[in-house]
Structure formats: C-alpha cells, structure tokens
C-alpha cells in the first residue's frame, strides 16, 4: 500500500481517491500466508459486515492510512462490478468512464501504472515519501485474538 499512499500524497490536489476494502485475500480460515502470521495480520474471513468494519478500522488505524476509505458490503457488489479481488486499481474520469484499468493483483497490481496515468495528465509529481508510523499499533483485540468476530449487525 506504500506506493498508493505516495501516489495519493503526490496527486491528492489533482485527483480524488477512494480505497474500497473487499473480502480478505488470505484469512486464517482459508489460504493464510506465513508473512501475515509474521506481521500479526491474522483475521478470519468476515461473515458479517460488522466484522469487515472491524478489520477495515484496524487497517486504517494501524497504518494511519490517509486515503478516503470505504467498505464493500456483504453482497460484494463493488467487488463483483469491478472484478476487484484481491487487489486492483481503476481510474474513473470526470465523465464517469473507466480511464485506467489495472491488472489483477498480486502479480499484475501495478500502482506505478496509475501514477503514469496521473503523470501524463498532470505532470510528474514526487513529494517526499511519507514517514511510516513511529509505533505500529497491533491489531485490536477483537481483530487479533478472535479474528474479526464482533457481533453482527
């Protein structure tokens, strides 16, 4: 996500940004990655919207994620409409059309292509990289101890 944050810092005066949290890619009850265990990012696949909300809030707080943020609801409407899972970037132009369609992550997830699109339009911009949070707080107890299991709404 660091590349995306840098792009946001560089172009937030020129373009709007929205991050949409979609279903987990590597939850504990599906295909968990060792790297997630090492980084203490362990969540079960959310079964309710409330669980998604908890994880999304853990994410934004832990990384002090600066981009505007939203959550796909349990119908996965945004994910289905944009074939977004596990990660993907689009740019929508002012007329409401797809101006850039990124590849499917992780192998074809290339934030630099979105940067290139913005640079072609607004010129190359490169601010100093934002400093990572000094103290990365661990995920909330609700998210870590009992992965993503708040009461459903």
């Amino acid at each position, binding site marked *: 996500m660091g590349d995306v944050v840098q792009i946001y810092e560089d172009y937030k005066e020129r373009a709007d940004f929205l991050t*949409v949290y979609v279903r987990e890619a590597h939850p504990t009850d*599906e295909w968990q*990655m060792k790297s997630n265990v090492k980084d203490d990012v362990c969540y079960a696949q959310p079964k309710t919207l409330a669980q998604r909300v908890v994880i999304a809030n853990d994410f934004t707080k832990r990384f002090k994620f600066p981009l505007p943020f939203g959550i796909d609801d349990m119908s996965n*409407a945004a994910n289905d409409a944009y074939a977004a*899972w596990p990660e993907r970037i689009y740019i929508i132009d002012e007329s*409401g*059309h797809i101006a850039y369609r990124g590849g499917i992550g992780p192998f074809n997830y290339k934030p630099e292509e979105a940067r290139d699109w913005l640079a072609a339009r607004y010129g190359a911009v490169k601010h100093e990289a934002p400093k990572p949070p000094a103290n990365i707080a661990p995920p909330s107890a609700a998210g870590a101890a009992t992965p993503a299991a708040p009461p459903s*709404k």
Partner: protein
Amino acid sequence: MNRFWKWTAGILGVIVVTAFIGLSVMAGSPKDAYGMVRYALPHMHRGTLKVGSDAPDARIVALDGVSRFHIRERTHDRPLVLVFGSFT
C-alpha cells in the same frame, strides 16, 4: 480398449501432477498451491470493464459501519483513483 483407458488415465495423471508441481513452485509450496486453487482462483476474474466503459456504481459502507455512499458520488470534477484491496 482397456489399454486405451490406462494410457488416458496415466497421461491425465501426469498432467495433473505436473500442473500441481508447477503451481507449487509458483505459489511457494504445495500448501500454497492448494490454497491458490481452492480459495483464490474461484474469486479471480478479469471482469468485463474496459477503458471507456461506464464506471459501475456500487454502494459502499463508511468506516463507521453505518453511513453509506455511492462510488459515483465521488466522481465529480476530477478523476477518481479507485483502489481495491484487503488487509491480508
């Protein structure tokens, strides 16, 4: 006929084993290969959107878990960079 089916089954078996080994190398381990086939591939789709397509709308839940807004509400006078992802 019996010999034909033996050969067919043998060739199919070799293909399956080869594909699994290839996936294991690509994914990192046999467990990861299984995870990819079982959990990732069913959810990965190229989709039908192309550059120039109308951007679909969808209702999004705000971080407070209560408020809702639509993606298209965020498209105004400037391009909207839409980033999809998850924590893990």
